[in-house]
């Protein structure tokens, strides 16, 4: 009863959280999951795992399941155009099996 879908993962600055969610929904995704995330990346302007007073240096991890690869690519392209230049953000994708196939 499972179905092959795509899982798009976006790790980004928390300040982008609302904008990313808006972008994901308007692209046509049916849902998403947000987690707080910490860590260190290649971009030297930020490196933190500990909670921060202003939340400007904290990260979120957003996961989106999409039924088609095209939808995931559309979302990625929009994120790339809008945010890659100025913000700490990475995106990656992998195929997963969704167990409630009728949802996608």
């Amino acid at each position, binding site marked *: 009863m499972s179905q092959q879908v795509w899982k798009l993962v976006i790790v980004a600055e928390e*300040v982008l959280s609302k904008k990313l969610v808006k972008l994901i929904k308007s692209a046509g995704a049916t849902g998403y999951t947000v987690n707080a995330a910490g860590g260190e990346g290649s971009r030297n302007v930020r490196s933190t795992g500990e909670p921060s007073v*202003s939340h*400007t240096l904290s990260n979120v991890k957003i996961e989106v399941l999409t039924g088609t690869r095209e939808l995931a690519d559309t979302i990625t392209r929009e994120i790339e155009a809008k945010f890659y*230049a100025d913000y700490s953000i990475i995106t990656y994708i992998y195929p997963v099996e969704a167990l409630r196939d009728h949802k996608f």
Partner: protein
Amino acid sequence: MAFISDFLPLFLEQVQSPTLGFLIGGIIVAALGSQLAIPDSIYKFISFFLLMKIGLTGGIAIRNSNPTEIFLPALAAVGLGIVIVFIARWTLGKLPGISVPDAVATGGLFGAVSGSTLAAVLPQLDSAKIPYEAWTAALYPFMDIPALVTAIVVASVYLSKKTGNTAEKVEVWPIIKESIQSSAVTSLLLGVALGILTKPEPVYESFFNPLFRGFLAVLMIIMGMEAAQRMNELRKVAQWFAIYAFISPIVHGFLAFGVGLIIHKITGFSIGGAVVLAVIAASSSDISGPPTLRAGIPSANPSAYIGASTAIGTPVAIAICIPLFIGIAEVMLGR
């Protein structure tokens, strides 16, 4: 010399206040790599609590006073918030190796106001028995919002000129809305509104007022730990930011104190009120300003402005500017 010999003991007494002791304690334990961590949610609650109490005090004072008194100081706060950004644009922004958006964002943050610094100065004035209008705390948003708006507009104008892309206009209203919706300004304004419209004295006397100093001390530890941690960010950017962060709170404070004294001459605004205005100008935003600037000036490096503000600006405002201006006020009042 008489001024200095009067001033020094008063200054030293201020430096030994609990506020400052807890701040330095926080810096030291974090610098020593202590595992001490105060949960984020506690921090959020404390900053809400302190600003709510300050707002209530201000609201109750406004209810019992002439609301037109606030007009001139509020106008001065708006002007100072804007001027501070331009000072950064034409001093810090002109230095070698400093990008204009970084300088303007830093100026915006230093023009904006720190809730923790504001919370620290009021009980110190009470302890020193220097009278001030309780509504002066309500000047916070009048300086905070214009500074952030000016910084974002100046940076956007600069960037659009540089890229030749004049099509994108800056929308001011969303920035103002975001500032008002920020947790710090909302807590303060809600407190002011409740103070004016309701009679919150029972909860004020039994809850907000007695716990204020204790929570403030905890907040100072958090700010100290945060300062030590943000030092690492600051090390990655040009040293000019550290120099600016050290000097500018004192310069902004004197500028605002001067303006406050002029208003004192015109309308009888108290010397204590001028101290509050000076400390508000000396403070740099650490809670609500950074996310607004991050979204408003994306190309500015957050390590530069947050490092400058949290690691150096706030400790200088609390540890140097508060005792400095209270000391000057005490001398002026002939203590």
